[in-house]
């Protein structure tokens, strides 16, 4: 991005201008209050996930008087089925990301570089499809997937997730294919490479950074999907983490294991959080860079 370059230029050993910083003190205070609140409650949840239920009830989670209780994680992972939900979510996200790219990237390439009838129509339908709320489409989809009830439910949900991400992914990639130079295709054609071969060997690898960004968003989107999951994948065996966690919360009344509940929350929270720690720059640039849909 252009503005990041601008920022780096004057940073050559600037001394802290305390007067300038002082005028921004209210700003610092506001931001810090927000951050301290966020950090405090995340840390508390983390500490609670290592504590026993009585300790949590008394509010003494930071003392660890009875030691660090790693068994909360074992309970959550095995007894409360988190292992299964986690595996399901991993399966949906990975398969979903791969197939979304396989469908979207070729379509996006053709849409952005070739003129043919319906090109405009398909492009605008994709943009409309991106903003169609899920509530408009779930009922009919439920009706026609009901006739496939014999097919494995996991596959139905995976296919829905793939289809659900295709418009966003295709629209996101349009700009990136457009900016590539025509000379790649010309050179490939002279060397006797077929148009499709040109795409897979040359153009597809060239947009790799965009593919990575959009795949991160697809992964987050599928991992965090809730509404569709509640309708199409709500049974114990096939539920992803979101629906699974809801089921754990609902059963809390009977089990009363708060430590394990917080351990489950941390397990669900960690994968995307870790992803974010390593890739936050890329994710943030992606939010404002392309077309946006959470």
């Amino acid at each position, binding site marked *: 991005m252009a503005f990041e370059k601008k920022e780096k230029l004057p940073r050559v050993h600037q001394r802290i201008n305390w007067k300038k910083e002082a005028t921004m003190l209210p700003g610092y205070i506001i931001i810090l209050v927000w951050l301290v609140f966020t950090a405090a409650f995340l840390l508390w949840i983390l500490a609670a996930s290592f504590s026993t239920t009585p300790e949590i009830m008394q509010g003494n989670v930071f003392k660890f008087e009875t030691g660090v209780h790693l068994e909360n994680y074992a309970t959550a992972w095995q007894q409360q089925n988190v292992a299964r939900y986690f595996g399901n979510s991993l399966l949906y996200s990975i398969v979903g990301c791969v197939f979304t790219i396989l469908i979207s990237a070729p379509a996006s390439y053709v849409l952005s570089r070739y003129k043919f009838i319906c090109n405009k129509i398909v492009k605008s339908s994709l943009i*409309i499809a991106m903003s169609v709320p899920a509530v408009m489409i779930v009922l009919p989809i439920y009706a026609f997937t009901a006739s496939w009830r014999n097919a494995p439910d996991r596959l139905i949900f995976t296919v829905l997730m793939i289809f659900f991400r295709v418009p966003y992914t295709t629209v996101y990639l349009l700009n990136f294919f457009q900016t590539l130079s025509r000379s790649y295709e010309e050179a490939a054609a002279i060397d006797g490479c077929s148009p499709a071969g040109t795409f897979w060997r040359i153009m597809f690898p060239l947009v790799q950074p965009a593919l990575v960004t959009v795949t991160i968003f697809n992964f987050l989107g599928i991992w965090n999907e809730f509404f569709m999951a509640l309708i199409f994948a709500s049974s114990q065996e096939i539920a992803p983490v979101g629906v699974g966690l809801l089921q754990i919360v609902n059963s809390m009344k009977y089990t009363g294991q708060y430590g394990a509940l917080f351990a489950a929350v941390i397990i669900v929270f960690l994968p995307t959080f870790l992803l974010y720690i390593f890739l*936050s720059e890329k994710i943030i640039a992606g939010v404002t860079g392309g077309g946006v849909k959470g």
Partner: protein
Amino acid sequence: MIIGIVSIILPVLALILQCVFAGFSILCIPSIATAIFAALAFWKKGPTLALVTVLLAFAQVCTLNIQLTAIIGLVSAVVSVFLMVDCDKFREAHPELADPKAATKQMIIGFMLPCVITLLVMYAYPVIRTFLMSFFDMQNITAPIAEWSFVGLGKYQKIFTSPAFIRSLQNMITIWIFGGIITLALALLFAIILTSGIRFKKFFRAAIYMPNVISAVALATMWIQYIFNQQYGMLNSIIKFFNGTPLNWLATDMKFWAMLGSFIFGAVGYYMLIFISGIEKIPADLYEAATIDGASKVQQAFKITFPLLKGVTKTNLTFWTINTATFYLWSKMFSPVDTEASVIVPVMYLYDTAFPSKGNTQADAGAAAAVGIVLAVIILAVYLIMNKVIKDDDIEL
């Protein structure tokens, strides 16, 4: 060579088994299509046709209803991948066979087909059917169109006379107005602070956006089980520290505001990023000139930043509207078992009408579809009004 033949035989085999064990039905279509496309790919040696074969073979796996045939379908999907690679190699070995024009045409069709199918199956058909459903009465969602009976605007009448739906609309409007003002104001405040040359800007920005990437279910659970907890929760601990009386944050009259507060906490970061991108597009020399002329930071915000952020505000308002109209997750988390009137929102009403959890209520797919249509109309109306009211006369400097 062998790969090509195998990729044709496998879907045919799956088709035969399917017909023998489950009879011929509409579910056989993907198998037939896979076989045809595999044959075409093999005959014309087109990698693009092979790509279509891969996707069709995948569709085949989804529709086959006997485990044995599903396994065969899976194998044929894998073989089709090899077919794709094989075709490409063949092409390379015999460049004289390639007719560039035909190959381009073939590629366009092959590359577009999966995407267009997605649009038709996942969007066009469902949207049209939802629209039609809202004018009909039917036994359940899965009833075929032949069994629907026309009721005109009856379903709309039904939902607009239902107290639960009216309550859900009221809640939605409250979220839209109060939540919108607070969220966008906080987002704008953070955006202005972060772009004013503050240190650790990237870290702060990333930290504020963070709740948007983690699972909202986990976030909601953290709020409900910790912050709002009556016994050991954060808010009540603070109240106790100042010797106040602890409150029940999740009591019926407080619940809605508790939900809204926690939702706003998660949402602010996203709108902040959009505002930041808008502010960074404003040329820096405007601020330099203002500083030289002696304008304070606050004056600069009111005279330069706000007027030039109209376009971005419109984007944010559109997203906020979509976000509120499709608001569901937080309501569900705050009333996980039975829907409570205090936090009901339209999507929740839709879900309960279409898939009633209690045995005594009758599912009404028509009314549920009508709710969907009402929400879509609301989003569209707000979008159109905003386009009329806020003109996009952004900076052209």
